[in-house]
């Protein structure tokens, strides 16, 4: 537990040392609010859905970019700062070390998503039942965690491929399109809907909208469970890929090759 939580927190401080309060506020708090407003006004203009659809969807989405890039950075920045070999020399389980890395980013994602939801609610006058907030926070936490583990999968790919940021940037755009946070999923073709089913955020966004619409937490638990299961699935994939790529990097002596 100490390895996961304390190790994760120390690594977060070390790898995220380049940020400043102004950068944090500008990129992670203000940026998602403008993204919400952009999609809300687009939705109004096109008559696709009401503001509530976009406020809740974009609050869930706000966690995605941060968690996805954070998960990617958790692995690939070790390589960039030439500290990856030190991590891999550790006698402790690398799987636990790297899974722990995703947790601070997930916590950060939860903070940003909650902030976006609250600001969106006040800016666009959305009414959320008081009883829904606990369930909403739980749902945003599940979404953040699964997005962070998905980021870890992408980060592990960065051990093998150089242009991991290209993959991360593209995946953020794919999640905007397919997760149902901005485009109603019933308007997507079946094949794209099926892909969306296996992406992080999709089931969390649906659950969050039901909660904001007055459903009880018990009724949305199946959707929330699916989101958690998908997050766990990505955690397992990340662990397996990290093992494989670590072995390959040692075998081909390409560990610190940028």
């Amino acid at each position, binding site marked *: 537990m100490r390895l996961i939580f304390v190790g994760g927190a120390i690594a977060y401080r070390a790898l995220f040392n380049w940020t*400043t309060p*102004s*950068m*944090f*506020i*500008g*990129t992670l708090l*203000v*940026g998602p609010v*403008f*993204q919400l*407003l*952009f999609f809300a*006004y*687009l*939705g*109004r*203009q*096109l*008559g*696709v859905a009401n503001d509530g659809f976009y406020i809740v969807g974009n609050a869930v989405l706000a966690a995605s970019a941060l968690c996805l890039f954070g998960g990617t950075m958790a692995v690939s920045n070790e390589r960039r700062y030439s500290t990856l070999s030190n991590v891999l020399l550790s006698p402790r389980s690398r799987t636990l070390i790297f899974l722990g890395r995703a947790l601070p980013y997930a916590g950060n994602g939860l903070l940003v998503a909650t902030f976006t939801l609250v600001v969106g609610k006040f800016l666009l006058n959305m009414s959320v039942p008081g009883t829904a907030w606990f369930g909403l926070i739980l749902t945003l936490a599940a979404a953040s965690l699964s997005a962070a583990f998905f980021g870890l999968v992408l980060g592990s790919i960065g051990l093998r491929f150089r*242009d991991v*940021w*290209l993959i991360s*940037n*593209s995946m953020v*755009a*794919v999640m*905007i*399109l397919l997760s149902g946070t*901005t*485009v*109603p999923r019933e*308007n*997507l073709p079946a094949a794209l809907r099926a892909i969306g089913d296996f992406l992080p955020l999709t089931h969390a966004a649906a659950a969050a909208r039901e909660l904001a619409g007055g459903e009880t937490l018990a009724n949305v638990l199946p959707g929330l469970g699916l989101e958690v299961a998908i997050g766990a699935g990505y955690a397992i994939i990340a662990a397996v890929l990290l093992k494989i790529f670590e072995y390959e990097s040692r075998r081909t002596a390409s560990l610190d090759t940028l």
Partner: protein
Amino acid sequence: MRVLRLIGIGTLMHFKTMSRGLFEIATGLIVPIIQATMAVYLLRAGDEPQNMVKAAVGAGLMGIWSSVIFGSGGAIQRQRWQGTLEMMVIAPRPLALSVLPVTIATGLQGLYTMAATLGWGWLLFGIVPDFSHPLLFLVAVPACVIGLGMFGLLLASTFVLMRNANAVCNTLEYPIWLLSGMLVPLTVLPDWTNPFAAILPTTWGARAVHEAASGGAVWPSVAACLAISAACFAAGALMMSYVERRARASATLALS
């Protein structure tokens, strides 16, 4: 004439340099294509399923702005990292004229985006780029790129004073998309946003391109875009010379 030659050759050189980066090219192609796809599905889901060209053109414009904001935001910093900033500063031309080709090149790079979204829309969704004024479209897009390049110079000169220019770049992407009417018409925004939209060259550039594509008086928008952009260039040049003098005096030119 010599100034135009400097800008032309400089733009070509920086455009070719930027076009060597796989990451920039791929990001400039893949992300806007996904955004165009999203715009198409949103338009189909909404009340305007017939206005598909708008989706492709709007996504292309969004890509051009992304290219300018991130390219211009890091223009000076990139020259520092490459070790070419000193050479630009000691060149016997105002620094602004040396930096302007960099920012125009970032706008030109955004043209990949426009081509990609139009091609993607045609191939996958059968959106024929049947523009109302095809020839004026070929005028409006370069005018928009030049206008955004000059606006980029102002941003580059301002960002060089900020240590956290990246944060500003990240924050400015969606507001400018929104305020410029690239995909969302300005009519749906609150009235108090109109003055802000009116002073942005991006608003007039996007309007000119949309008018060329869907119908409307293109020339007034082109003229407004270029006039505001020229003012941005003048302000950017003043700022640039101030920054240059300060950096020379404090010997911090090469410090990142």
